[in-house]
């Protein structure tokens, strides 16, 4: 243990002078080409949420086709594959990654750390515009001849660039280019998030006093910086294969009797590159969610987070471990069984730090003063959903169980629970929680509760039956089950049930969108700190926070972010920038 000098009140003067901020001069530099992390955060979030709505509607079309084959005449097999591909890619990369890191990261990192802004505001602005360009390219692929690619979100070669897969002409090229632009843009943003955490913290804000939200976003950013290059290299090589006729991934192929000019390439190589990015990606989405949930639970249960230190270590451990599990997505690719054993072991080991986190959340709730606010409802729902989705992960992580289940609806149900529903519940919870800071007004509560219950129960009604379909052997990625006798009538009935529920749950999301817009003007005034929370973003000089975030003086941090219900304190929370109270040090000295 390091002996920490705990200065009582006597804070030495700052040695480093305050940063110089860029001050916008016109409306355009203020709101459009903004260098203020808060505006960039809103730009990121609104873009990502809009894409989320589009991807949601794509999933509606897919569900209608599965339940009532042929009901929508414009959906043929090709269109169905295009829907699947675009839905998956949009949700994973352009919604979840962008929202957690670009949206919440930009808004919360500087505010929670007591910084005036990100350390490289210009690169931060560029990051958003690269992201928007990537989105434009992605959406433009709907308009090119042949439509978007239908290769599946994993884009496995050789099928992704051979005839028969829709979007061969233009779609796949646009997809790869869009991903490359996204990665370049993200790298600029990611450098910002990481360096701001390392360098931008205010005085007294040691790493171990940062809120867990920042820890989650920070670790996820580091991971994303190291994982996205794999997708980048894969995309470049595939572009070469598609456009220049190289054979990085393309083996010798005979197409309609004619030999294609490819030869000797390795499709497995692409799978390695893809999943070297793809698996960390799961935790790039999950770690910010873990962090945010920890904060939501602590604030709304009025109790300090249980095992803060362990939570930090678990986040870091999960981040490191997630780089050595990628091949568990490739058990059926014909790889050496010893590799399978190795990757199954590492996969199951991740359950340990993850379980530590779940226990700590539950122990935080225990004997807490639980307020069932809307953010809290979503946070609690996340814990349940993440455990449920994680448990099926234990099934799929075992090679022998995975082999019969792979490429069935069971897999679809698993990753939608753990990587789809669970993080999105956190996003909703976080939006209800921080919306008052962004806009100064609270979201409507009855509407929020309606949104919560329909979404939470509906998600279970959609994805629980899907596990049964998978166990029956219903394959994923088939655009209809057809006249196959092996599936009983109940499978068809379940499909219809899932589709109807999905339409209803999707519709409920529009109530949320309405709430977001309506509350901008008509929501209840929130004040500076409606949840009575300790962390610094709630202690700003004004709400919404002004340019530069804090007033003349940056706050000085005297404690961690979880001082709720401290015995002897005048209120049930003590803000992080509150100097020690009389007698407090003696009562809490180690």
């Amino acid at each position: 243990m390091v002996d920490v000098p705990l200065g009582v009140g006597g804070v030495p003067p700052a040695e480093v002078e305050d940063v110089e901020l860029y001050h916008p001069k016109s409306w355009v530099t203020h709101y459009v080409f903004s260098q203020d992390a808060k505006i960039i955060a809103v730009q990121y979030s609104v873009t990502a949420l809009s894409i989320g709505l589009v991807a949601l509607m794509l999933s509606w079309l897919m569900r209608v086709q599965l339940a009532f084959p042929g009901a929508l005449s414009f959906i043929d097999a090709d269109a169905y594959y295009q829907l699947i591909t675009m839905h998956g890619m949009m949700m994973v990369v352009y919604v979840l990654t962008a929202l957690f890191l670009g949206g919440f990261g930009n808004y919360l990192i500087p505010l929670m750390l007591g910084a005036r802004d990100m350390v490289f505001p210009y690169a931060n602005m560029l990051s958003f515009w690269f992201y928007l360009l990537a989105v434009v390219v992605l959406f433009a692929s709907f308009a090119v001849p042949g439509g978007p690619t239908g290769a599946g979100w994993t884009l496995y070669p050789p099928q992704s660039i051979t005839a028969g897969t829709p979007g061969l002409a233009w779609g796949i090229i646009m997809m790869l280019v869009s991903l490359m632009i996204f990665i370049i843009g993200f790298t600029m943003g990611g450098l910002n998030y990481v360096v701001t955490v390392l360098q931008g913290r205010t005085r007294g804000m040691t790493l171990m006093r940062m809120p867990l939200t920042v820890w989650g976003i920070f670790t996820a950013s580091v991971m994303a910086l190291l994982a996205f290059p794999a997708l980048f290299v894969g995309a470049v090589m595939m572009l070469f294969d598609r456009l220049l006729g190289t054979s990085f991934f393309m083996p010798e192929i005979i197409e309609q009797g004619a030999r294609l000019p490819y030869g000797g390439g390795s499709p497995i190589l692409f799978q390695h590159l893809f999943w070297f990015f793809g698996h960390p990606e799961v935790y790039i989405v999950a770690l910010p969610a873990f962090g945010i949930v920890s904060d939501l639970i602590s604030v709304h249960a009025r109790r300090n987070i249980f095992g803060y230190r362990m939570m930090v270590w678990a986040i870091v451990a999960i981040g490191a471990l997630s780089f050595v599990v990628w091949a568990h997505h490739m058990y059926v690719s014909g790889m050496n069984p010893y590799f399978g054993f190795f990757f199954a072991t590492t996969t199951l080991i991740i359950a340990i730090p993850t379980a530590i986190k779940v226990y700590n959340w539950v122990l935080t709730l225990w004997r807490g003063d639980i307020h069932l606010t809307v953010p809290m409802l979503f946070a609690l729902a996340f814990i349940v959903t993440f455990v449920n989705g994680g448990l099926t992960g234990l099934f799929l992580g075992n090679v022998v169980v995975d082999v019969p289940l792979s490429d069935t609806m069971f897999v679809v149900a698993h990753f939608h629970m753990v990587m789809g529903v669970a993080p999105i519940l956190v996003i909703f919870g976080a939006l209800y929680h921080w919306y008052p800071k962004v806009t100064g007004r609270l979201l409507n509560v009855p509407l929020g509760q309606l949104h919560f219950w329909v979404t939470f129960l509906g998600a279970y009604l959609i994805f629980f039956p899907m596990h049964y379909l998978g166990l029956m052997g219903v394959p994923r990625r088939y655009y209809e089950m057809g006249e196959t006798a092996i599936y009983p009538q109940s499978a068809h009935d379940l499909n219809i049930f899932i589709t109807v529920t999905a339409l209803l749950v999707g519709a409920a999301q529009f109530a949320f969108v309405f709430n977001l817009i309506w509350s901008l003007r008509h929501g209840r005034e929130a004040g500076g700190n409606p949840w009575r929370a300790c962390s610094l973003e709630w202690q700003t000089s004004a709400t919404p926070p002004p340019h530069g975030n804090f007033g003349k003086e940056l706050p000085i941090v005297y404690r961690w972010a979880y001082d709720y219900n401290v015995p002897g304190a005048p209120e049930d929370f003590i803000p992080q920038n509150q100097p020690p109270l009389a007698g407090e040090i003696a009562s809490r000295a180690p």
Partner: protein
Amino acid sequence: MIIVVAFLAIVIVIAAWWLSTQRIMSKPWLEIGFIDELPGVRPPPTKIGLGIFLAVAGVLFALSISAYSMRLQSADWWPLPAPRLLWFNTGLLILAGAALEWTKRQSRHADLDGVRFGLIAAGVFTLAFVIGQLVVWRELVGEGYFLAANPANAFFYLMTGLHMLHVLGGLVALARVTFRAFGSYEGRGERDRLRLGLELCAIYWHFLLVVWLVLFALIAGWAGEFFEICRQALS
């Protein structure tokens, strides 16, 4: 993929060492009061940013090399000859890095003419490197080593191309620093900024050189034997 995992392991060890200096064993719930930063000067944010960027670029190259080593095993691999000119280009890149290092020295002695001269020299050497690489490409294409003809060719063009893109990106930064050196040069702030820019360029050029030496070793075929030894040791 062992290569990229090994590279990541190095990154993780560095990160773990750094974390271990950040009081991660402390008990924040017991520590009330002001804790000042650990003594010592904080490095400037741009330097940290560059360090992290180098890790990212390093992963990019480690991944390419991993892919290279996997593809190397296939039967249709015909290594292409390493043109002599590559040796010359390597020399140019070394000279560019040395010039920047020398310029850094000059800036410490506040020798502005030296700084300007050094910056121009580094820029010229680097540009010559880029042109040299392009000449190598033309030479190889002229001899029939087309991009799509063989995976060895494809990897050669891909990896030298990726490296060249990084060199060009560095040249943009170098141009900015050069303009700064030729612009108004008054006040301590300006001088410190110039010195920092020089230092960052020098670091980046050394990184480019290391990456290039590794790639060159692969292209020249020395790495093939190394991979073979590793494979035998592993199997």
